[in-house]
């Protein structure tokens, strides 16, 4: 599903060269629920940008769903983001002044989907349990509800991976658990999920945890009893 091979990323800030990733090799299988952990500065945001095709590696290869992403142009990357990746952000990132339904429809609009757009968007909202909030604007929804709309938007194009960047960072603990259970459910249904977090108890929902430090993989551990099965 996802293969990273010797991925490095170097930023130039003025005359200073920042090596954010120093050679990451990682394989993610179909249907895995992977958490990437690390302190700030460990390179996890950079890694997430590369996995999300928002940025390209300086060196190395990134193969997503059989496509080598390195060397694609902006519009090709936009196509990959649209079809293969579903984003869930820390700050929800819904479009303001647009209804939940319209937000969920948005990826389908850019995909050029016409006919069943509405039905598919409603179906995705139903999946996250918000079908009755389709006509609400983001400001009329709670944080947990907004994040669920964002998850519906991420799912609507039926992407290869769901990429969640600190999805509970702006939520209280009750809503956090609610969102993590939803992600765990989606995983149970066979979704591939990559979760970026720095919180141990959030990472505990995943069945594999990769820890980063200083742009390198520190540890890669598989968990036999992830939290979802214990709960």
């Amino acid at each position, binding site marked *: 599903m996802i293969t990273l091979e010797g991925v490095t990323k170097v930023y130039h800030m003025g005359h200073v060269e920042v090596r954010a990733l120093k050679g990451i090799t990682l394989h993610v299988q179909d249907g895995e629920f992977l958490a990437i952990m690390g302190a700030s500065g460990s390179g996890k945001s950079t890694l997430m940008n590369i996995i999300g095709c928002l940025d390209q590696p300086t060196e190395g290869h990134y193969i997503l769903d059989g496509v080598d992403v390195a060397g694609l142009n902006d519009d090709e990357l936009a196509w990959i983001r649209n079809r293969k990746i579903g984003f869930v952000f820390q700050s929800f990132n819904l479009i303001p*002044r647009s209804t939940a339904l319209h937000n969920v429809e948005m990826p389908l609009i*850019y995909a050029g989907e*016409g006919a069943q757009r509405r039905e598919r968007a409603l179906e995705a909202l139903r999946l996250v349990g918000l079908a009755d909030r389709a006509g609400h604007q983001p400001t009329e929804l709670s944080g947990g509800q907004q994040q669920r709309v964002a998850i519906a938007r991420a799912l609507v194009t039926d992407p290869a991976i769901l990429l969640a960047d600190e999805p509970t960072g702006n939520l209280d603990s009750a809503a956090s658990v609610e969102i993590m259970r939803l992600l765990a459910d989606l995983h149970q249904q066979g979704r591939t999920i990559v979760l970026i977090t720095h919180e141990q108890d959030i990472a505990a929902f995943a069945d594999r945890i990769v820890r980063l430090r200083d742009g390198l993989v520190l540890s890669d551990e598989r968990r036999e009893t992830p939290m979802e099965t214990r709960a």
Partner: protein
Amino acid sequence: MNLVEAIRLAFSGLMGNRLRSGLTMLGILIGVGAVILLVAVGNGASASVQSSIQGLGSNLITVSPSNLRVGGVQQGFGTGNTLTMQDVTALKDKTVAPDVVTAIPNVNGRAQVTYGNQNWNTSLSGTTEQFPQVRNYQLAEGQFFSAADVQAQRKVAVLGPTVVQNLFGGQDPLGQTLKINRQIFRVVGVFQSKGSSGFTNQDDLVAMPITTAWAFLLGGHNVQAIYVEAASSQATQSAESEVTQVLLNQHHISTVANADFQLQSQADVLTTASQVTGTLTLLLGAIAAISLVVGGIGIMNIMLVTVTERTREIGIRKAIGARRRDVLLQFLIESMFLSAVGGALGILVGTLGSSLLGRLVSSLHPLVSVSSIVLAFGVSLGIGLFFGIYPANRAARLHPIEALRYE
């Protein structure tokens, strides 16, 4: 993403900030409205100048004798004594002058006219029965004198409205007798008012048969001017050269340089006047166009603000799969929507404003031209496109990571 979606996106973007969108449109509205209004005022002025010149007879050619030289001293305009009734007859010959409809002779002078205890000094015109046709005069009442009156040297007169007003007060002058330089004349007709030609009051005259004028008032047998009516204003030039040729033959003169007569046509005056009013219209339009450009800069300014404000939204759209052209299209349509709606409202305001101005200020007759509407609207669309491209392109080129990080 198809165009309908793009338009829907752009529309919801604009509706998100109604006051700002409205004010931006106002800039274009004023620009387009001003272009239409000012060009209409210019066109109106041009049309009224042209129609008053045309009122003189735009296909009229005036033939006058050359200026007389006495002992090497140049005398006043038309002081020569070279035109005759034979010249008039020759000009009516269709075989040599096909573009000439007809020609009439004219003698003029000043006359003291008396009726009862009233008297008035006016301009006297001795001519033939075709005078109303050639000089574009209409009769308010009665009739013009006939060919028979000319033949028989009858003492009949047709009065201009100014003369009637000063001599008769409220009375009906038709059939009354009055004295012109102590000779008794009968009034057979009254002209309709023609207004001023700009230099002379065309309503202040007395017309009579040329034969009568010769016999009883002015003496002699010379023709002071010949008025030639060309077939149309377009035919004026060819008519002029035909007239020149006929008169050169009549007077046995070989070259135009030695001619003992001179021509003047209203077409020359009309051309000059059109140039002047055309320049005026252009000037007014140019001033208005400046405000249109200012409106366009307003659009660009607001679009740049909008792009900056919505940087994060652009980042989100890019993250979920918007391509460069999707973002470009969205913002371009927003700016074009502003200019199109502003332009459409501007057409409305400009057109309504023109008719209102025409009603409020009676001396102005604004003439809204379709071409100015099409041009102003087209230019405003073009402005929306031109001033929208830079902000839209800026939005399209934003890097998704930086855009998402923007607070």
